[in-house]
């Protein structure tokens, strides 16, 4: 059940449907190996430096009749991950006051599909975003080193 909005909630745009995807490019240096040796997106990919986190919105990409992979044009070494807006908006279960929003961001300096994840991305919320991104990966960055050569992988 959705929690009621409060005055302290981050900006959130309800015209971005919960079941629509939010995309984020993943640079190769922010892919790590989890405890089972599988590739996973590092939480560092969701370090917003205190401000909103840039994303691409499926709802806008559809309006523009673009495929999500258009976000990788000009970034051949990057991967692309997508997670639902609902997952982004899901509050931290232990701290329901810690929650994030999704907004459209029609900035002329940004691509027309640009949006933002708003609110403070705590370590805990960043971990959940990274987990969602890893599950919803569209394409991993190409030319990833194999597991044995990745530093720290041996441990």
């Amino acid at each position: 059940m959705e929690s009621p909005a409060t005055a302290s909630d981050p900006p959130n745009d309800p015209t971005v449907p919960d079941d629509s995807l939010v995309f984020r490019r993943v640079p190769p240096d922010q892919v790590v190996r989890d405890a089972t040796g599988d590739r996973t997106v590092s939480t560092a990919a969701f370090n917003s430096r205190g401000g909103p986190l840039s994303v691409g919105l499926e709802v806008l990409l559809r309006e523009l009749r673009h495929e999500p992979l258009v976000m990788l044009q000009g970034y051949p070494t990057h991967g692309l991950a997508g997670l639902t807006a609902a997952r982004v908006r899901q509050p931290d279960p232990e701290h329901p006051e810690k929650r994030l929003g999704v907004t459209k961001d029609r900035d002329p300096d940004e691509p027309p599909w640009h949006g933002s994840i708003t609110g403070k991305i705590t370590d805990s919320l960043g971990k959940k975003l990274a987990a969602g991104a890893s599950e919803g990966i569209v394409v991993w960055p190409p030319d990833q080193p194999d597991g044995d050569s990745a530093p720290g992988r041996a441990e």
Partner: protein
Amino acid sequence: MITTTEFATSQTQESASFASGAFAWYPVQSPEWTGTSTSDIRLFGLVAQLDTLNALVERLRHLLDLPADWDSYGAVPVRADVVQQAAHLIRDWLTEGIPAPQIVPTPDGGVQLEWHQPAAYLEIHLSTPTDLSFYVESDGHEEEGTLATDRSRLASVLASLASSRSGG
């Protein structure tokens, strides 16, 4: 005759298996089985450590080569003083038996050290040489802290990583 490289590789693989608990009964290859002496084993173990250290140094060097906007979202280059501090910390931790972390750049010019283990997840973020924060997930619990206020807790988490590596 097993080569040094092969042995170092097997040690590394054993460490990985050992950490997961899959081969807890088989932590060290017995000298009797290989025809090598105990001193050889120590030497080979040192070579394996050096290989790990070399890989970490290469990784840190690589991070220093990242240009501005390496993440396509306006990241700043990784700070040399942060890399130097990370190298010092990792060197000290390795000598204490703490497993090598995975090292990830952060968009603020910092680095993040990550340990993904079956029993625990730990990340340490260095945004400046003196600004260190950490996040740990273990036994279904989450904790966030800073070196300034939670030094003993971080030491405890790192010790548990070393303990899980050695089977303690």
